[in-house]
């Protein structure tokens, strides 16, 4: 098995970066072995990459269901366990049920979406990572791993596509 080396190619803009992605794909690199790091979100079709899978919406829906049950417990569970008569209103009121269930469902949806983003992205993570600060200055980076023996081929292809630098990626504290 040949060793793999992780390289970071820096591009000025999205266009040359998508060219670089295409070059890597032509050279036979697996889509899973490359990642595009950018300062703004770039649509996967612009880059020519497969869509990234996100579980955030699924976790959010799960949270919405949890929130709904919590709301139902508040408005119907509490009077079931501790019934107290107030003002001639029904013990299990329907209008208040709608209000509280709605609020708790939305809280569950948004709260779990937020947590889902943390979980899915692995946040917070303070271990050393491959990164350069120029990315937050607007550059687009292409992080990929290829066999050590073939790295010259990849580096030349990317330089032709317009990469400013291609260098071994070092994991550093952000």
């Amino acid at each position, binding site marked *: 098995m040949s060793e793999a080396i992780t390289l970071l190619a820096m591009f000025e803009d999205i266009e040359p970066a998508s060219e670089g992605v295409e070059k890597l794909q032509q050279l036979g690199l697996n889509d899973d072995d490359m990642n595009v790091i950018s300062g703004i979100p770039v649509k996967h079709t612009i880059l020519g990459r497969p869509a990234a899978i*996100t579980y955030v*919406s699924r976790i959010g829906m799960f949270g919405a269901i949890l929130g709904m049950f919590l709301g139902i417990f508040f408005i119907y569970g509490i009077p079931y366990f501790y019934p107290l008569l107030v003002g001639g209103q029904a013990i299990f009121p329907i209008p*208040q049920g709608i209000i509280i269930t709605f609020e708790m469902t939305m809280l569950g949806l948004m709260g779990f979406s937020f947590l889902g983003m*943390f979980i899915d992205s692995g946040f917070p993570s*303070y271990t050393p990572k491959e990164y350069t600060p120029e990315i937050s*200055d*607007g550059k687009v980076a292409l992080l990929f791993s290829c066999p050590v023996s073939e790295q010259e081929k990849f580096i030349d292809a990317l330089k032709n596509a317009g990469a400013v630098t291609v260098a071994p990626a070092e994991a550093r504290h952000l």
Partner: protein
Amino acid sequence: MTTIAKPIARPHGEEHEDPRQYLMHDPLPRGQMNAMVMESMHETSPIFWLITAVLAATVVFSLGYEWYILIMQGQGMAGVTRPDYWGVFLVNTVFWIGISHAGTFISAILRVLKVESRRPFTRAAELMTTFGLVQAGLSIFMHLGRVWLVYWMFPIPNQRTIWPDFHSPLMWDLMAITTYLLCSTMYLFLPLIPDLAMARDRTEGGWLKQFYKILALGFRGTEGEWKNLTTAMNIFAFAIIPVMFSVHTIVSWDFAMATRPGWNSTVFGPYFVIGALHSGMAAVAIVLFLLRSTMKHYKYFIRPEHFNTIGMLMLLVSMAWAYFYFNDYLVPWYGGDVWDKLFQEYAEKGPKAYLWYTMLTCNIAVPWLILWNRKWRETPWLLAIAGILINVGMYLERYIIIPVGVTINRMPFTWRQYEPRIEVPMTVGTFAFFLLLYMLASRLIPLIPVWEVQEGQEAHLIRKIGKAEISTLSDME
């Protein structure tokens, strides 16, 4: 070198305008924009710290000392009495929740509607939401008779085996405001992460670097991270809009559910929501004017075109407010029972009638006279003055509903006019606290979402169609 955009004077009727005056067509390299934002954060003048010190002293005095007196002596230190059980603290609560709605309107509704001119000021508006809700929460605590027992209102298991009563609109309030506060804080934080990463990258060391590093969560900008972030942001943008509508509706139901004349009106729900937007948009105009005037480089980001957008929204919302107010006025005037009519009569002809007239002037006349003219809308200081007047008017609107309106009830023997006492310094304290939080935030977090500005600039193009240079927008999402 910084680029300052000057608005090009346009004679009335001339249709050709240079799109390059707009922020989206005047891009700077991202690194330069980042540097501008970081510089405006870290360069401060002695006046800034002087103002901060004065605000902090005001907060300590009014929210520390005065509130301590209120708690130790009792609600009698305030101006409340029978039948004026609720007073200025409730007005403050409704006012601050109203201010907070503008943030969500701009960062959520304008995002969903894809209004591009929202891009530079979503965070400044969203900060208003969070800080406004803090003041609202404080104000509601201030009015409680036994505030040290407020945890009895929280629905958590307890050894007293008593739970709160969700029949009560105050409990709906608690659920709604908690939901809104938590969700808007999360919604503030989500788009902030990439900018915190930028700040982390541009800070050398010290406690500030640690602060940014921890809050940036290790964000790099990989495809997966962006996908998760934008998915979460989209969920929030769509979901927080109904929450925003429901929150102020539920606050209005504190009054509409009461059997008091003048309060028991079915139009209160939408009326209060529009009122919240009215005062909130006006507050955004004030905040943007202050930011643009005081923060370095912000004249690049916040331009007359943004004030134009806000001004148009202010005008639109003021018309909606006038519609709802007319509704709320016409129905009891025409066929309401004697107590509702007395309520109206007292507001218009009683000893506090000058408040009623001021309210109508500020809420309707001011926007309708000033905001029609595009040149006036694009003048920041004029919009800020209109914003202040509108906020005065909206504060008075709530003052008339609560402390003035609460005088009238079905037992004329009890009628008595409310006069605020300790509420005055404590109200000043909430305003000072809001400003203080904002000023401290402006030193710690970048107020301009630079990545969103760049995102927008990437998507905008100037295209020559025929003889004209037309601004075009590509859908890159």
